[in-house]
């Protein structure tokens, strides 16, 4: 593809261990996790702080204390105040957006070096009062004297006092993601066993990757107060599960005949991740890795009512077309696993002529993504899925795989709430 843009290289990336919510990161929030990832990144890669032009972090569930968690986190990690920082929010593709926004700044000459990533803590979700109560509390700040307070209490019902927890539900449809995906997998003919097998594969591959030391250069050892014991492993990976065990689980969202269970879905996770992107020129000057660069990226949008999590199919197809590449050109596939079934549904869709014609407007089907090249070190179902951070994990793993597997192109794709999709292609110079 011809382009007038400056080449952007993905130098490297790091993430905190991803932990199941309410485990060892229980006392931490978005700020702390972002700080840990950004700190570890700059220390392990020996970044010179004056070289960094921007810090961009994705975040989905803001706790209200750190609306610009990129800024708070980078300052806490000792980055320079002179480096601007901002936070982006695009559901589960927030880190993807952080990276591509950074890449745009670089390729248009506005920056030479950007640290981009994301964070989410499901141990620190903001629990709010419901709207009627919030209205009363806001009014209470203006109240003068007991008379005003009494007036405020009038008409208040007991149920107003109940808390409102952010739901992982689609705003426009009211459906939870699990409910939606249950519908999706049925539509694309993905059965319970397919899903359980894919989930088990994810756990086994992630377990093996850890065993083989493949994550040693991707995952930081973090130490947190008050104990500062080293935490260096993800804690949600269960490579020893069996199909029998998975089969026993009841459907979690649609009962009694749904197919999505707690085991074939990604779980609530705490974690943060970040990558370093640079202009090729700058990386060369600093003697840093220029091996893997960004080829192109795109985003897609579909109707959240029906095609909520079909982003990978839409965005990938769009990007392949734009770059003139075909599936057979791609050596490394890293797809976000919101649900095992959601990945399989997208794979089926790409391999279905009717879908590709009707939904993607193509003349023929894209084809089958070879599973042997897809998420071969596990995915969000096994490693976990801190919403804002996952994109940076996918990018780092894809980059490292390209080098390790001596490949040329890597396709990173992910779905997100709102019917959004992200696709990024990295190219390794061979």
């Amino acid at each position: 593809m011809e382009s007038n843009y400056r080449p952007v290289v993905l130098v490297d990336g790091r993430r905190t261990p991803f932990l199941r919510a309410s485990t060892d990161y229980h006392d931490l929030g978005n700020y702390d996790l972002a700080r840990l990832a950004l700190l570890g990144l700059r220390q392990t890669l020996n970044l010179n702080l004056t070289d960094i032009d921007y810090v961009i972090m994705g975040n989905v569930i803001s706790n209200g204390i750190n609306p610009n968690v990129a800024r708070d986190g980078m300052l806490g990690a000792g980055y320079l105040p002179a480096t601007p920082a901002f936070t982006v929010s695009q559901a589960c593709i927030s880190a993807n957006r952080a990276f591509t926004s950074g890449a745009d700044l670089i390729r248009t000459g506005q920056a030479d070096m950007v640290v981009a990533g994301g964070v989410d803590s499901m141990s620190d979700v903001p629990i709010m009062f419901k709207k009627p109560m919030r209205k009363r509390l806001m009014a209470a700040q203006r109240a003068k004297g007991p008379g005003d307070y009494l007036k405020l209490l009038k008409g208040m019902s007991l149920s107003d006092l109940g808390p409102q927890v952010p739901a992982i539900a689609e705003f426009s449809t009211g459906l939870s993601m699990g409910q939606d995906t249950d519908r999706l997998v049925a539509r694309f003919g993905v059965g319970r066993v397919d899903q359980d097998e894919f989930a088990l594969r994810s756990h086994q591959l992630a377990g093996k990757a850890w065993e083989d030391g493949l994550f040693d250069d991707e995952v930081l050892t973090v130490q947190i107060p008050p104990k500062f014991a080293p935490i260096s492993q993800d804690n949600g990976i269960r490579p020893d599960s069996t199909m029998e065990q998975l089969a026993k689980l009841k459907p979690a969202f649609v009962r009694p005949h749904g197919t999505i269970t707690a085991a074939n879905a990604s779980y609530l996770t705490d974690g943060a991740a970040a990558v370093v992107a640079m202009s090729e020129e700058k990386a060369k000057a600093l003697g840093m890795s220029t091996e893997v660069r960004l080829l192109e990226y795109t985003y897609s949008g579909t109707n959240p009512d029906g095609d909520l999590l079909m982003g990978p199919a839409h965005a990938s197809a769009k990007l392949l077309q734009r770059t003139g590449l075909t599936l057979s050109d791609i050596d490394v596939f890293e797809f976000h696993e919101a649900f095992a079934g959601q990945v399989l549904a997208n794979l089926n869709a790409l391999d279905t002529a009717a879908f590709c014609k009707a939904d993607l407007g193509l003349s023929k089907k894209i084809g089958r993504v070879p599973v042997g090249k897809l998420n071969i070190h596990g995915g969000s179902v096994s490693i976990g899925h801190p919403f804002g951070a996952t994109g940076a994990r996918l990018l780092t793993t894809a980059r490292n795989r390209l080098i390790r597997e001596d490949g040329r192109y890597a396709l990173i794709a992910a779905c997100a709430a709102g019917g959004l999709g992200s696709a990024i292609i990295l190219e390794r110079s061979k």
Partner: protein
Amino acid sequence: MAYCDIERHDDVVVVWLDEPKSTVNTLSMDMLDEFEAMIDDIEKDNDVKGAVLISRKKDVFIAGADVKALLEMESGEQATELSRRGNALLSRMANLKKPIIAAIHGACLGGGNEVAMACHYRIATDHPKTILGQPEVKLGLLPGGGGTQRLPRLVGLTKALDILLTGKNIYPYPAKKMGLIDEIIHPPGLLQAAIAVARDGVPERDVKRSTMDKVLESTSFTRDYVTKKALETVERKTRGNYPAPKKILECVSIGLDEGLEKGLEAESKGFGELQETPECKQLIGLFLATQEAKHNPFEKKAKDVSSLAMLGAGFMGAGITEVSITKGIEVTLRDLNMEGVGRAKQTIWKNLQSKVKKRALSSFQSDVIMSRIEGVTDLEQIKGADIVVEAVFEDIDLKKRIVAEVESVCGRSTIFASNTSSLPIGEIAADAKYPQNIIGMHYFSPVPKMPLLEIIVTDKTTQAVKGTAIKLGQRQGKVVIVVNDGPGFYTTRVLTALTNEAIQMLAEGARIEDVDNAMKDFGFPVGPITLMDEVGIDVGAHIARGALADMFRARGIEDNSVIQDIAKAGLHGRKTGKGFYTYGKGKSKSINTDMYKYFGGEDRKDFDKKTIQDRVGLIFVNEAVRCLEENILTSALDGDLGAVMGLGYPPFRGGPFRFIDSEGAQTIVDKLKALEEVHGVRFQASKLLVTMAKENRSFYD
């Protein structure tokens, strides 16, 4: 006018304190003269509604009185006069009908705090450099500008006694809570806020005092109870060695029982009396010496250190890391595993948290400071370090191996500093490729609290390396002394002489507590036996096997092999729960009488306190003089600073060399001779001391 720069803001006079040719403001006669004239003007001028006192200096309001001038005063009477004048003036200011507002940013200490307290309203900035307090007691003095009177009236008796008797710093938020200041504001808003108060009048005071405090302060009977309790604590802690705290209590009581006038007069008198005491003179001398130690003779060749690599994350490694990161230095902290690094981080974090609790630091600032630590396990990761400090186990072969490893990953200009307490630096550097880069940086435990850094240089160490090490130590907030290499350098050598003698006395039948108590009465903060338990008997035994022991043995200082047996038996002191003392939960401890089996059984003899003090104390000062004689020390001043700041030698005695000067060299020589006759050659007076006695010289002019 020289000290004050007057500025009119319509109906308010702003007095900028700006002592000429100085980076700080100090209280002096000249300044008081100007104050007087200024008060006259404010009083007379009908257009003036009030005044603001504010400083033009960076991060200093008034740092205290000119102690050097105080030391040089010929008599206590002169000091009393100064205090009387100051008090008269400050009382006049306090009684002025127009409000004077203290606008405090930076250090507001001693006389500075007294000026502020005589004002009608105090606003302080929320800046970390803003601290208040009455540190006079640390110099053997009392606050002679109304501090013993106005402080109890502002903050209550119990809080006031705590501040006056400890001399500690008070940060703005606690100061506001107790009523020492009335308002807190950000630095840029300080002046406008103070002007507003001066113009609009002083608002009603709003301080909540606890019921308990109110009750305790309500009658002279209950007040007496509080002061009596405080006196008991003071006596227990100072063992009668420091006259100042007692005087402070006396002045506070008189002021509360008989009124401000009488209190101020008692204070002025007490101020003069204390100024004449040798304790005060020694303490001020020491204070001035620490100021002098801030000089770096190799400043020009020194490099700035913005990062260092710390090898070993034990208690010392954690301490050195803490004093570095709190001063903005990035530290790569290396240990064999991340658990070790984690323990060090935890130690540091807890210390920072205690500052967060006092609001001297925000939780975010603590994060930023912690972010300066990079924990690593692979030595490869320290490459690129400008300076490497090692605090690994005290083993010469290990240290030599570390030197080789560091040299293999780092550059030829990387400084290698060893935090050894006794291993000769020359030996550590014996096989080094770049011995010119090797230096000793001997910190004292706990590093964040102990002010001394003993830097050890060899004849190969370059000036650039020396200069950089000194600069680093000073940036870490340490009082730095530079000594030459030799067994035990200076501090470990004199300390070992002292503990050896203490053990010798146990072997002769002395009781553990008698030895400890005698030396505490002499003025050491802990007795020598307790000190061995604290340092670790295994550490002592290790030192006793090295070059230092060989040297001592040649001079007839027998190291008792018994200490090896004790160490072998696993009795290592506090860390193992058992040493000369048995350690229970918390702070409780009791004599471990089992220990006497190593010293001839449980039958113990009475030893006269003076005998213990002479034997243990004089062997120490004699050894110190030997260090000077052998050019281990290059000045008596370093010897005094090292002994007081590093070893707890009684500060009111000024250090071993000041001690000899005040006793007279001949007296010490005579005493040593007498001891030598009874106990043998180890008490032989050093040649230098004998010469000094013969020529009737002293170490200081």
